């Protein structure tokens, strides 16, 4: 089976090509099914790989498959070579499994769109790029996937490019990601310079070669991570990214894009562990991002924006987890998050579908009567997000927090506070649109449940959101054991088994979550004046949160405007005076010479011959002098 791992890449490629070439003559729905089938077949391959690996002894679960030699100059060997180990297989399962359900949902969601063919070609490409990233055994191939994911996200976020906001959002995502990719490229070159290798396993074996410059290298990698995984300081593209069709948001947030950063840290953990400074920074960025994004999520009124900030916050948890060395906990949260975040987005998409694109939760209310299936699945996902036991998010978040406690109490405290806010905004996202009374009668009248092709994926995801947490029950963690060989040699210390203390902590975080849910329920169902009063009491902080801490404005003032001005200067002064001057000058000179030659009535050939002659004189002079 392992020798057929390349099939996992082949199927999305085939789907993509089929739709690209034949799509023009195919029915829209068929296009969607072709694309979905392709991803499903990849999923089957991933399942096959999983069982094939499982049949091997735990410490031998590592397989490299060389497809072909790609770039080889001396020691530099970047081949198209896959790495199949527990980590890549888990990622592969998430990408293809969740990706498949999103594809199916998209068949219903994109019905009637003018460019269904283009949409599914891009979607398959997105999956293909992400799988390339995940299964690459070396940095160069990973970089190919990394850039491919960036390209796909640009194309899909800006899919409705007629809308200026969508086109802008696509551009923003692309540009912000470029900043991170720049760090990635430099890091790869640096790693190659020091170790002479680009394959992960080789690098891990000789990781000490990187030790002298490890901090700089990992900081560059971290820059790449913050770009792709939407962490401080490069998170600003993600909230705008919901301008794309909702299935795209689901794909970006759950399966394909933002998880890439977490995966990168896990994959290059050996390098990161060389630099305690960077690891601390990783954890700090994670927890601070988790906290700030949660505050912003609490203040949003746009359903998809709430979810977008919640993704940033949740990815912050994962980064926090890997930052304290709890790699498998971070990956575990990635898996559970993929289920419930995909479900939340698809649910939001269903609401949007029913509401003709309206996403302001203040105009909704009472939707559970009109859309019961969407409501129940959305509620399950929100419970998972909130971290309510026994839903998925509880176990994974708790495992991260437990590891953090062993590492740094203040981060743990901030993480726990964030858990409270998470519970609060998740509850709000359910209560306000779905419960209570309808706020906008007109919109409410027209609302309706979505079709089966959309609700079935919702339910399948809901099962995952409800139960995937059981993969990681404390002490008998299946996923922990599965990933253990990958991170076997990578310990930061201080991972003592907790015993009874761990159970107390679980109880504590359950209480915090319940408090958050209770507060939100009180605020939006019982005493609806409470949010207003509370905000007033916050004073200027409320204003800050409302405006997302003015970070976008800060970026505008500090980076974008100066660059614009610089660009303007280049266009006005440099381009017009210097470049145009040079070009015009050259034209003038050749014109003059041409004119002069033309007077001799030999046409331009004379001048050409003269130049040839001049060159010959120069070469003769050179060779005769140097010989």
């Amino acid at each position, binding site marked *: 089976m392992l020798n057929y791992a390349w099939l996992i890449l082949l199927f999305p490629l085939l789907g993509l090509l089929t739709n690209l070439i034949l799509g023009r003559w195919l029915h829209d729905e068929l296009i969607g099914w072709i694309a979905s089938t392709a991803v499903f077949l990849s999923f089957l391959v991933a399942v096959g790989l999983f069982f094939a690996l499982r049949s091997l002894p735990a410490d031998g679960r590592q397989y490299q498959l060389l497809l*072909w*030699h*790609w*770039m*080889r*100059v*001396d020691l530099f060997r970047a081949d*198209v070579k896959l790495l199949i180990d527990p980590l890549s297989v888990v990622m592969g399962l998430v990408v293809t499994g969740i990706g498949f359900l999103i594809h199916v949902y998209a068949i219903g969601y994109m019905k009637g769109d003018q460019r269904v063919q283009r949409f599914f070609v891009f979607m398959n490409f997105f999956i293909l790029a992400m799988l390339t990233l995940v299964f690459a055994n070396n940095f160069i191939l990973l970089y*190919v996937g990394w850039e491919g994911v960036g390209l796909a996200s640009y194309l899909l976020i800006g899919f409705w490019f007629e809308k200026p906001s969508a086109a802008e959002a696509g551009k923003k995502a692309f540009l912000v990601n470029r900043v991170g990719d720049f760090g990635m490229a430099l890091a790869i070159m640096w790693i190659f310079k020091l170790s002479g290798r680009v394959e992960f396993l080789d690098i891990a074996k000789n990781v000490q070669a990187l030790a002298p410059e490890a901090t700089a290298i990992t900081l560059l990698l971290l820059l790449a991570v913050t770009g792709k995984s939407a962490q401080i300081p490069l998170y600003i593209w993600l909230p705008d990214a919901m301008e794309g069709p909702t299935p795209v948001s689901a794909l970006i947030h759950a399966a394909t894009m933002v998880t890439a950063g977490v995966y990168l840290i896990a994959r290059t953990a050996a390098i990161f562990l060389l630099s305690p400074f960077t690891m601390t920074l990783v954890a700090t960025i994670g927890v601070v991002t988790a906290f700030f994004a949660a505050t912003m999520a609490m203040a949003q009124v746009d359903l998809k924006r709430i979810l977008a900030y919640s993704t940033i916050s949740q990815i912050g948890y994962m980064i926090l987890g890997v930052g304290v060395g709890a790699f498998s906990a971070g990956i575990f949260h990635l898996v559970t998050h993929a289920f419930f975040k995909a479900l939340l987005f698809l649910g939001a998409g269903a609401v949007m579908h029913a509401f003709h694109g309206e996403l302001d939760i203040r105009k909704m209310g009472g939707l559970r009567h009109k859309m019961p299936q969407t409501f129940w699945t959305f509620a399950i996902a929100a419970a998972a997000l909130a971290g309510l036991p026994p839903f998925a998010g509880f176990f994974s978040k708790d495992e991260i927090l437990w590891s953090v406690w062993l590492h740094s109490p203040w981060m743990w405290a901030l993480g726990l506070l964030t858990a409270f806010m998470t519970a609060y905004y998740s509850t709000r996202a359910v209560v306000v649109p779905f419960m209570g009374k309808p706020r906008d009668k007109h919109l409410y009248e027209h609302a309706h449940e979505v079709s089966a092709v959309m609700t079935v994926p919702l339910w399948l995801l809901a099962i995952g959101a409800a139960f995937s947490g059981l993969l990681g029950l404390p002490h008998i963690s299946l996923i922990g054991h599965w990933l253990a060989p990958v991170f076997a040699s990578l310990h930061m210390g201080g991972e003592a088994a907790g015993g009874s203390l761990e159970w107390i902590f679980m109880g504590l975080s359950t209480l915090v979550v319940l408090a958050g849910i209770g507060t939100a329920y009180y605020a939006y169902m019982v005493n609806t004046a409470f949010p207003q009063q509370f905000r007033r009491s916050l004073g200027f902080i409320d204003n800050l949160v409302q405006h997302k801490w003015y970070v976008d404005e800060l970026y505008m003032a500090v980076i974008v405007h100066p660059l614009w001005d610089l660009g303007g200067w280049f266009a006005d002064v440099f381009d017009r005076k210097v470049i145009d001057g040079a*070009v015009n000058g*050259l034209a003038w000179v050749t014109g003059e010479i041409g004119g002069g030659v033309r007077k001799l009535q030999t*046409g*331009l*050939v004379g*001048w*050409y*011959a003269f*130049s*040839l002659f*001049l*060159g*010959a004189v120069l*070469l*003769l002079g*050179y*060779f*005769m002098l*140097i*010989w």
Partner: protein
Amino acid sequence: MTITLPSISLLPYLPEIVLLITALLVLVIDTFAGEKRWLVWLALLGTIVAGVTTWSLSLGPTLYLQDMLAADPYALFIDMVVLIITAISLLLAYDWLNSHAHQQGEYVALLLFSAVGMMTMGAATNVITIFVALEILSLSLYVLTGFARERLTSGEAALKYFLLGAFASAFFLYGVALLYGATGHFDLVGIGKNMAGTGLMAAAGVALLLVGFSFKVALAPFHMWTPDVYQGAPTSVTAFMSVGAKAAGFAAFLRFFHVALAGSYATWGPALAALAVLTMTWGNLAALNQESVKRMLAYSSIAHAGYALVGLAAGNALGMSGLLFYLLAYAFMNLGAFGVIIMLEKKGSGDLSMSALRGTAREHPLLAATMAVFMFSLAGVPPLAGFFGKFYVFGAAVKANMTWLAIVGIINSAISAYYYLRVSVLMYMVEPDENTTDVATNNRPVLAFALLVALVFVIGIGLWPGIWMQMAQQAAALLG
């Protein structure tokens, strides 16, 4: 006194002979045939047979015809490149020829004669053979350049090309004479052996030969003819000579410097590096502001000659195989780019202006996407063929401790991205002009097929560069 007759074995020359016979057949049939379009297919068949013959030849370093020619892997590699170029060029010309039916036979025959010259350039191990091959290929090209008789520019281009070509050939021939005077040898190995201790005469000979080669592959400042000739010639001819003459020119250029002048690399290495810098910079800067797509590609071809020369200037094994790889990659992407121009140019104009590209993606999405791939490849965007060409030759420069040369090359690639991407921008992001609606793109399956072949290779070479690089390495290995 006994006179020993030289034993003549023409077997290794079989690919060229096949092409010659095909060309003669084409000429003969042309006088009888009523339906002329079969001539192209006949020529294509001859090309394929020649290709099969090439494959079946042994790969040993066999010299033949009094050691005037070699049938080594190097020659066979060049044969392969030239035959591919010839086949695609025939397909590119198919539709244009149907509107020039009375000249069809001559065109096809001249193309094949020129190809014979190109292949002989790759096989030549003697400066005299190189000269003869150079003339065979050039004379055919002069005529082909002037083939669009209905356009004055075509005739003008032919005349210019001929005059300057003759001028450059004179330099070349004088260089041959001086080299013979200094070393007493015409064959490359002999020249190489007797190079030590030679004086100014040999130096002048080398310089003048370099002028001849530089003219043929269009290095600055010997490139001035290129834009006018490329623009004036029928586009299918431009496509053919832009890659064919370049490949053949570089083939002989490389063999001469590495076989005859291996010992004096310290002398010519810096000179070639300087020429490379001058050539790519000049080509790229001049290409920035062109209004005619053909002219832009002419300057681009000058820039590419500069990049390819980096491999030669590096003087190491990677540089040689990198240069051969470059010639192959460049053949496909440039033939493809000119093919798209043929597809889009207005009938009888023989040219395509940049503004005519506006918004073509709207009406011809596939054609625009194909052109974009060729442009990206020419710009050197991974993972396309053009990227790997640059990757290898710049890598060779780094290996030869000429990192500065690689950096100049990379800066130049960045500059070139401007004008290559401008084509994509015009096609995709600008509203179509009203007067571009008459861009002719009726259904032309033969041309479309040629484009598809070029496209598949541009992408395929990018994904599997190893296979081609291995061939190039084998070809370069025996030159040592």
